[in-house]
């Protein structure tokens, strides 16, 4: 029993164990300090800076402090830092090759945060995906789409591709492409469309609606009618104004033509010759 006790005390007195305890303490203090610093940064800068800038500074401070304390803990355990750093250098080359995509995303993330094409809460459109920005992280941007799906977009793809921020400016223009029949009086069509625009309260009076004669289409005269509305009303306005245009066209007898083909026989006056094949076959019987 005495023998066992002496073994235990020998072990406790051992320099190595004490070093381990000290290292653990340093690491523990480091974690607490890093967390406190992170919370303090949120409090100090939260009011003056944008959400993602604060988030970036918080993370930077947290990991920097943690790294310093970890290095110090390793030193306490007796690791020679120059060897550790040397090994880390070789390792970083290997990791660099292996994590090329992550590194690219990381750098792209930093550029995105610096450039600020959008911020948390904006609605953006990337390729076919449209959604609200939930967070801008170092590796990716997270979106919530309108059908309530969570989409993760790698930062690298955002830097490379075209990103449209739908909520940058307070008003938006709705471009309607309208085709009317060739027989219609274009001035009347213009008046009807203008009347619809001025009647709809969601349609902005200024900037004025834009009427463009696009050209002579295959089946219709192609027109563009562009209207301005408040950003938040865009979808509701898109629906309401098109219903109103259809109703106004119906009331005024303006035709929206279907695509059609005219078969022309070579002369304006001659009728198109029609031969009833079935009747001829009946005669033979």
């Amino acid at each position, binding site marked *: 029993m005495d023998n066992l006790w002496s073994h235990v005390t020998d072990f406790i007195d051992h320099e190595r164990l004490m070093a381990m305890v000290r290292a653990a303490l340093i690491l523990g203090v480091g974690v607490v300090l890093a967390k406190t610093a992170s919370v303090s940064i949120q409090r100090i800068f939260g009011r003056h800076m944008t959400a993602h800038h604060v988030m970036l500074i918080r993370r930077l401070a947290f990991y920097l402090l943690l790294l310093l304390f970890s290095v110090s803990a390793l030193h306490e355990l007796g690791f020679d830092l120059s060897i550790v750093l040397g090994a880390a250098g070789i390792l970083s080359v290997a990791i660099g090759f292996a994590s090329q995509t992550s590194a690219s995303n990381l750098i792209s993330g930093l550029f995105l945060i610096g450039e600020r094409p959008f911020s948390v809460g904006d609605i953006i459109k990337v390729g076919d995906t449209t959604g609200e920005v939930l967070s801008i992280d170092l590796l990716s941007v997270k979106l919530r789409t309108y059908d309530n799906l969570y989409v993760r977009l790698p930062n690298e793809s955002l830097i490379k591709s075209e990103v449209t921020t739908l909520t940058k400016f307070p008003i938006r223009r709705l471009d309607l492409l309208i085709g009317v029949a060739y027989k219609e009086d274009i001035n009347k069509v213009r008046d009807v469309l203008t009347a619809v625009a001025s009647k709809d309260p969601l349609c902005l*009076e200024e*900037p004025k609606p834009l009427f463009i004669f696009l050209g002579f289409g295959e089946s219709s005269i192609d027109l563009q009618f562009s209207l*301005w509305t408040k950003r938040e009303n865009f979808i509701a306005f898109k629906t309401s104004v098109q219903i109103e245009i259809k109703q106004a066209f119906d009331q005024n007898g303006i035709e929206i033509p279907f695509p059609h083909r005219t078969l022309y026989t070579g002369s304006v006056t001659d009728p198109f010759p029609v031969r009833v094949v079935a009747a001829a076959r009946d005669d033979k019987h």
Partner: protein
Amino acid sequence: MVKQVMEEKIAHKVEPVTVVKNNTLIWWGEFSFSDGQALRWRIGPLSIHILRLSREWRLGYQRCETTDDSAVDVERARPTDPAAVPDVQNRFVFRRTTDTLWLMPTLADRSVVARPVSPFYVPPGEETVLFVSSPLWVQISANYNRQPLESTPIVRPSDTWFGPSTREGELCYASTTHCRLTLEELPIRPHRAVTPVQIINRATESLLVERINLPVIYLSLYSAEPGQLWTDMVTITREALDENASLRLHKRPPPQAGEASLLCEPQLHADKGILSRAFSALFS
């Protein structure tokens, strides 16, 4: 079935209402309701149906499409069928409803952009007074000092943008107004408020007035006989040298209104009563 019985029960309780003033154009004020009573207001194109039940208020609205709002008929607190269901109906529930309800006119919650029928010039050194009318909202409160239950526009004005570009500017309401120059031409319209706008041009160039941005959120609302609503007078001075214009709010009923009483405080208080704005922020 239960609902039908309840509605029949309510229908028998219709009683006449106490009228605050005899003026037929005044539609605002305090109104008393007995339990189960329904009353109807008509202010121009808007019909308001209000039904009081023991534990809830039902506020209903109906709008008729009208393009001509120059002639306005006002019908106040007429008993109506409690079972009638308007196009829009909102319910507000209470522990127990009180017997009074307030209907008050308020000004728009954004600036109003007035466009004269045809633009005009104010030559250097000249001044003029325009009468600009702006749309009103009906604010319904169960208690005078409390948060209103609801606010609805009498005529929903069209939105408009006022600013140098589509990136910079302010979202406003567009007011279809004639910007009349004489008081005699001004029709009495109890569903719109009139603001006398004095324009003084101290610059060396003529001032072209096409659109005026009127910050109605800083204005008080006054009622005057015979049912016309007025706001504070506003003086816009174009300064001689710089590109600024000063906007002075007089903070009292305009002299043109005659005897007037305060109905509604401004939604925002301007600190000095004088707002200095870029010239382009007031005229375009």
